[in-house]
Structure formats: structure tokens, C-alpha cells
């Protein structure tokens, strides 16, 4: 039986470590100090909560404890920090500080720091997943399909640059937003994806990460209501999230879109997402997120899988391939090609895509091979897919598909 206190700590960590780190960064202006203090606070929680019980506001308890740990550390290393810094941190704790920008959210501020254009794109993603979403280095490595040591090094270098170059912790001014925004959107999207299909472990869906990404997307939409790509991203996340319940069957097994009970789809989220897609269409400034949202809107519109308008989906993928010609878009487009032009044509196209490290590449191939009556080739492709995901629900699903051949 799982230890209830350990479960509470785990839950608190998932829900509030990112927010705690962001608040500590605001208070102390030092990412490493913030991260270490929050880690220490969770270590204290693991020690004390079994005896004292879980406090009524675990997230707040973590922030307060982490702040005290950080102050202890500053006192011990007082040669590095002025007394003014300590006093300022003490004064600011608890109360809201004055903000020059339009948003009073510690995490949004930290997201813009993490996504500063002076940092390399890979570093921005790694930093945000670590500092905002609270992912561990191995999880980030799997999300990126790169070795753990590479991510660890990226994080160290990026944090060093933030400190040395003096990258500020603030939301950009209105005039700077158009340049800074695409980086932030990419990161929010990735956070959602990591939550939607956790890269490792037993749970197919880490709902907190999805909720976190949607929360951030909503904040961005509030902040920038005239940016169609912000609305497109929010719509995409909402329409995807709407299918969350239907996406897992008994025992947490994975259910494909075509086999989902559409009655379980969240109609409120769909209505909100469709409204946003329509608003984007009226603006007529298509971008990658709006097009992906539109593709999801077509799925959401179909009362049954058999009534999906695949031609429209393929047309949207054609448009998406033009403005975002990535291998993953090409792979997803092949799924629509299979429906419109048949699996043989789709397999030809899939085999031209170089995505060997990506499990969905092999899973897509496997499904096409199965439909083409090539069970031996399909089995080999499923095997390749299974070894490329650490998510147990996905592994089980792939294994099951393989066994059915």
C-alpha cells in the first residue's frame, strides 16, 4: 500500500514545485538558490509530514520553508550577498510586490526569462520544463529524445548565462512581445504534450502538467487577446484536453481516437475551443497552432469516427506542412493521407521521413503495415515502437496491438 504522506508530497511536488521555484526566483533573483531551497523544503516535508500530518496549504508551506532555507543559506554565505538583498527578500515575502508589467504572475515572468531570445532554443525548452513544469532532467531528456547528460549540460550553461549576462526576470514590454512570444508558445505546447503523454512511468496522463499548460495558455490569451497564435494554442490545448477522459480505458489503457466513446468528450472544452478556432478563422492570419487547432476542431465536429472529414484534415495538413515543414508534421499528415488515398500511399511517404528515434514513427508504420496485410513487418515495427517509449500505458497498448496481429 502506498504511504499516504509520500503520495501527498509527490502530489504537492507536481502541483506546486514550479510555482515555488518561480516565487523564490522573484524573491532572491537567483535560480540555483531557488531550486536548491525548494528541494530542501521538500526534504523537510518528507521528514516532518509523516509525524505532523500534511499542512492545510502544502504549497504555501513549501514556499515559506524554502524561503527560510534560502535565507539560512544567504546568511551562511553572507560575503556573496548584501544584507540589503536579505532584507528585501524578507520584506517581500507574503505580500504582493509592485509589478511594472501587466501580469502579476511569477511563473509567467520566469517563462519569459527561460524563453529569452539570447538563449538557444533547446536551452529555453529545457529550462522551462525544469523550472516551470518541474520536470526532472531524465524526463526532459526523453521529451527531447536526447541523452540526459546533454540536457544537464544545457541547463547548467543556460543558468550560467542568465546569471552572467543579467537576463532579467520580467514580462516583456508590449513592443517586445511579438518577438518574444513564439518561444513561449512553443514551450507551453511542449509542457502540455509532456503532460498529455508522460514520457515515463505508469500514468498515461499527468493531468497537472496539462492543467499547468492550459493555465499558462489562458494567462497568455488574457495578456495578448489580439495574438491569433496565442488563441490558436489555447484552442489546440482545450480541444485535445477535451478528449482526455475518453483516451484511457479500463486499467489506464490507451484508446485511439477512432475507438473513443465520443459521449465522454468534454463538450464545454470543445465549445470553448471551437469558439476560439472560429475567432482565429475570422482574423485570417493562420499559424501553426491555429492550423493544428483547426485539425482538432474537424475531429471534434465528427459525431462518429467514420464521419470524420479527412479531406479537410488533409488540406489543413498541407497548409501546415507549408508553414511548419517538420518531420513530425509530415508523419501526422501521413495518417490523413492513409484515410484519403489509402495506406500504401501513406507508407511510401512515411518511409521517406527520418524519425527513427520517435516511437510514433514506428507505431504509425506498424499500423499501416497491418492494414496492408504485412503482419511480420508490422510486428517488427511494433517492437521498434515499444523500445522507444518509456510510458507503460503506451507500451502496453503497442504490445496489445502487436499481439492482435
Amino acid at each position, binding site marked *: 500500500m502506498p504511504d499516504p504522506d509520500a503520495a501527498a508530497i509527490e502530489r504537492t511536488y507536481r502541483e506546486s514545485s514550479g510555482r515555488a521555484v518561480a516565487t523564490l526566483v522573484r524573491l532572491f533573483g537567483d535560480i540555483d538558490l531557488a531550486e536548491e531551497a525548494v528541494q530542501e523544503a521538500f526534504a523537510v516535508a518528507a521528514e516532518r509530514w509523516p509525524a505532523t500530518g500534511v499542512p492545510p496549504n502544502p504549497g504555501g508551506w513549501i514556499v515559506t520553508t524554502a524561503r527560510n532555507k534560502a535565507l539560512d543559506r544567504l546568511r551562511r554565505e553572507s560575503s556573496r550577498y548584501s544584507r540589503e538583498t536579505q532584507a528585501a527578500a524578507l520584506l517581500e515575502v507574503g505580500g504582493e510586490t509592485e509589478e511594472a508589467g501587466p501580469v502579476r504572475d511569477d511563473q509567467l515572468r520566469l517563462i519569459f526569462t527561460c524563453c*529569452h531570445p*539570447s538563449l538557444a532554443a533547446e536551452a529555453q525548452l529545457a529550462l522551462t520544463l525544469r523550472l516551470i513544469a518541474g520536470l526532472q532532467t531524465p524526463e526532459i531528456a526523453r521529451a527531447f529524445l536526447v541523452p540526459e547528460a546533454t540536457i544537464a549540460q544545457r541547463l547548467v550553461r543556460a543558468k550560467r548565462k542568465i546569471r*552572467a*549576462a*543579467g*537576463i*532579467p526576470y*520580467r514580462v*516583456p514590454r508590449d513592443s*517586445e512581445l511579438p518577438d518574444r512570444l513564439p518561444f513561449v508558445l512553443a514551450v507551453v505546447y511542449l509542457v502540455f504534450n509532456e503532460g498529455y503523454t508522460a514520457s515515463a512511468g505508469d500514468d498515461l496522463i499527468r493531468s497537472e502538467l496539462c492543467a499547468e499548460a492550459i493555465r499558462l495558455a489562458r494567462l497568455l490569451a488574457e495578456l495578448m487577446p489580439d495574438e491569433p497564435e496565442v488563441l490558436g494554442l489555447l484552442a489546440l490545448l482545450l480541444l485535445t484536453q477535451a478528449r482526455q477522459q475518453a483516451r484511457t480505458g479500463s486499467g489506464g489503457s490507451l484508446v485511439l481516437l477512432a475507438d473513443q466513446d465520443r459521449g465522454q468528450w468534454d463538450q464545454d472544452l470543445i465549445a470553448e475551443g471551437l469558439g476560439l478556432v472560429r475567432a482565429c478563422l475570422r482574423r485570417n492570419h493562420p499559424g501553426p497552432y491555429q492550423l493544428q487547432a483547426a485539425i482538432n476542431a474537424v475531429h471534434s465536429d465528427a459525431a462518429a469516427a467514420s464521419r470524420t472529414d479527412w479531406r479537410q484534415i488533409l488540406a489543413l495538413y498541407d497548409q501546415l506542412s507549408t508553414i511548419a515543414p517538420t518531420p513530425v508534421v509530415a508523419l501526422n499528415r501521413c495518417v490523413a493521407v492513409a484515410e484519403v488515398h489509402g495506406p500504401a500511399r501513406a507508407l511510401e511517404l512515411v518511409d521517406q521521413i527520418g524519425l527513427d528515434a520517435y516511437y510514433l514513427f514506428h507505431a504509425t508504420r506498424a499500423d499501416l503495415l497491418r492494414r496492408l496485410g504485412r503482419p511480420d513487418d508490422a510486428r517488427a515495427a511494433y517492437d521498434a515502437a515499444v523500445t522507444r517509449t518509456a510510458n507503460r500505458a503506451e507500451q502496453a497498448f503497442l504490445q496489445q496491438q502487436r499481439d492482435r496481429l
Partner: protein
Amino acid sequence: MKQYLLAVHMVDGEPAPSEAQMQQAYQAVGVFNAELRSVGAWVFAGGLHPPSTATVVRAQGGRVVTTDGPFAETKEQLGGFWVIKAADLDAALDWAAKGSAACGGPVEVRPFQESPEE
């Protein structure tokens, strides 16, 4: 306040700017320098003669070896620089954007290491 180096890089072999362009750049840089001074962001600045005028000196094992420069055999060479004071990188990048527009070339921004007494 942090200090930043705003380095202007010149690409060797690119066609030289016309006299009119040079005059325009001198004037724009003068205006930019005046703005830096007026708000107290100025520390130091200077333009350099071409890399072909450089000399490299190495003091090694008690010997001094002097050779014709420049040190780095690359096409991009330092053409001039500003040293400025700015609150953070964003402020430095704003100055760099103005400096780049004034001199007509890309500007690299690098933070100085803090001196121990700061």
C-alpha cells in the same frame, strides 16, 4: 549596474562603404555616443584601424615573440566597441540595437565579469 561590451564586427573583404555612408555612420554614432553620455550609460568607446594594422605579442618562457597580426585568422574582426553600464541584458540589448543601427553592422553583447569589490 552591470557593464557590457558592445563589440562591432567587421567582415574582411566586404565592399568598403561609400564616403557618404561613412559620414552618415560617423554622425549617427556621434548622436548615439551623446545619448549614452547624457543618461550615464557611457563607460568607454572607440573605433579601431583595420586588422592589417595589428601586431601580436607573445611572452613565453622569458622570451617575447612579436609577429604581424591579427591574432585570429577569421573573416570577422573587431572593428570597434562600446563599454556601457546597463541594469540588465534587456537594457544592454536596447543599446546594442541603437548602436547597430548607428554603425550599420551587427553588434555582439557580452557581459563583463563583476570585479570582486562590487
